[in-house]
């Protein structure tokens, strides 16, 4: 039995007169003790899926179970044993750190003392602010406190909806370290994020787009799926470079990636050289093409393209 099982879950919302499908018959499973990531842009359906799994919403069709319990029939059992941190969760701003934590402990009929060892690593970092109001904490601190609150009752499955959104890069990295430590305590963790770079930190990831799962595997396997040669392209005028690259018929795909553009070509590698000389003729200066290893984001872009075509 897997910690989370999802079978053909479909969910539709009424938006005025039209009907929007948020989830298209999604199926997947999460093993016990796994750190599972749902990666996808805003509006992909991640929150809806979490809400169905945490028994906050009913699916239109399909079944799902968490920790062996059906999300509809046994919702009370599930509510006892999952931890949930919603995306817009902002704690009680007017309560202190300690009061917030005691409240959530009381909610689950436990106390901070009882499960202190579980949250110790995290709580130690915010303990010096325990008399401070939650509203006066920094974004990263807030997320740590929220994580403590979600963990205080020793859940067997933890749902974290975009926990790192709006948090600075250092705090994000710290947060993921905490998640890896928690994993050692045999807690199954489902985490959703719009940040592609966090995908590599999960055991397995599902790439979600417009309510469909485009791919589901370990981060390494997903990057291996990338069957083309990937090039990075640079030139002095990066913007003009992008439009010029897209105009070349030999170019299969081209996306801006921070400081460089990631490009794949149709046909053989010679086409890369061909395009390079053509770009030089078009007046680009210091054009540089380099072969690189694809990252998860490249795969996601690729999968999205395939999804659009099909």
């Amino acid at each position, binding site marked *: 039995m897997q910690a989370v099982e999802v079978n053909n879950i479909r969910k539709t919302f009424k938006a005025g007169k039209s009907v929007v499908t948020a989830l298209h018959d999604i199926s997947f499973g999460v093993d016990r003790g796994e750190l599972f990531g749902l990666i996808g842009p805003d509006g992909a359906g991640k929150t809806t899926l979490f*809400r169905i799994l*945490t*028994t*906050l*919403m*009913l699916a239109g069709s399909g079944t799902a179970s968490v920790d062996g319990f059906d999300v509809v029939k046994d*919702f*009370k059992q599930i*509510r*006892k044993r*999952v931890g*949930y*941190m*919603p*995306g*817009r*969760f*902002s*704690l*009680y*701003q*007017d*309560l202190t750190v300690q*009061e917030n934590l*005691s*409240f*959530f402990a*009381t*909610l*689950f*009929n436990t106390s901070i003392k009882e499960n202190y060892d579980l949250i110790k690593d995290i709580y130690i970092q915010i303990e010096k602010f325990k008399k401070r109001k939650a509203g006066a904490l920094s974004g990263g601190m807030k997320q740590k406190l929220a994580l403590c*609150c*979600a963990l205080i*009752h020793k859940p067997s499955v933890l749902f974290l909806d975009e926990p790192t959104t709006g948090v600075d890069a250092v705090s994000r990295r710290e947060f993921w370290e905490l998640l890896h430590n928690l994993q050692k305590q045999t807690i199954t963790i489902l985490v959703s994020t719009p940040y592609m770079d966090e995908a590599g930190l999960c055991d397995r990831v599902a790439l979600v787009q417009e309510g469909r799962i485009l791919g589901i595997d370990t981060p390494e396997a997903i990057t291996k799926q990338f069957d083309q040669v990937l090039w990075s392209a640079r030139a002095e005028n990066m913007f003009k470079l992008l439009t010029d690259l897209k105009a070349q018929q030999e170019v299969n795909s081209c996306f801006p990636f921070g400081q460089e553009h990631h490009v794949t070509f149709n046909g053989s590698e010679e086409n890369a050289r061909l395009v390079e000389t053509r770009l030089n003729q078009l007046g680009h200066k210091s054009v540089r093409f380099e072969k690189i290893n694809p990252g998860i984001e490249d795969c996601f872009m690729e999968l999205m393209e395939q999804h659009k075509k099909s």
Partner: protein
Amino acid sequence: MRQFLFFVKKEFYHLVRDRQTFFILLCLPLALILIFGFALTNEVKNSRIAVLDNSKDKATRAIIDQLEASRYFDILEYIPSNDKLEATFRSGKIKLAVVFPPNFNQELLHTNTATIQLIGDASDPNTSNALINYATAVIMDYQAGFRNAAEIPLRINTEIRMLYNPQLKGSYNFVPGVMAMVLMLVCAIMTSISIAREKEIGTMEVILVSPIVPMRLVFAKMVPYFLMSVVNIGSILLLSVYVLDVPIQGNLVLLILECMMFTIASLALGLLISSISNSQQVAMLLSVVVLFLPTAMLSGFMFPVENMPAVLRFISHAVPARWFYTTVINIMIKGLGFEYVWKETLILAVMTVFFLAVSILNFKTRLE
């Protein structure tokens, strides 16, 4: 129980830490009592009037003295002639003019009839009506003394007694009304807003995904507002007895119990509103439109229920404040016992149970 007490403590923190709101809620009774007691009154006191005395004799002198002696009137000026009268009214300085015809005393003594003209500024009909009545009463008073001396064989006197409120004070009427408004405001509006806030900041989502029955948390929310209302009931009663001189004629314990009953009804209403609103704004708007306005307008406090059109009178039956208002008037002002208010109490109790039942049934265990 330990859980419930902790939740109550948490709600107290919310209430007390929001200093401004806390302060406003505590001072609200004071503000309303002062506003209604001293500013928004339609009682007539020290109204400025003018006198045009064309006769200037013994009788007119005596009547003018009596007018001046009463606390209703201040004589602002003596107008010398009829032409100046209109101008004085236009200037807005006076509300009433008393005009004596020439040879007033002579006519009175010889023909046994004399006429005094009372001219009122009816741009404010209620005030001018009241002033004319007061002035007539003063003149009748004078006439009565005059008659006693002359002893006319046959006459009919009307003797008027204003029961329960002999001085016709407005405060007898609005203290119960203010009580209804304050309790509605503190209990219903604040409860509904505070539950809606949990939905807005996302804590409700976490509370739902927990083994707790959410109703328990919601009931914990009511406790601080209930206690606060008890404090407010106390301060309103103290203010009305010691500041406005409205005595409590009936049983104080019964009165306080009835107030608590209405407090619980208001809390239940707040709960009902919160179960259908997802944001603080919606909760606020609903409370004001559905609760506060009917409480002010349809309870009989501002406008008598008997004078309303049939439709509004019918709607007023569904307004809890209407029954509460009648109950408080009966106990506090008329000094009646429980046997006179059991019907209203029963109606309020049934309403409370109904509101509670609907909101509990309506409370969603999921987000949709």
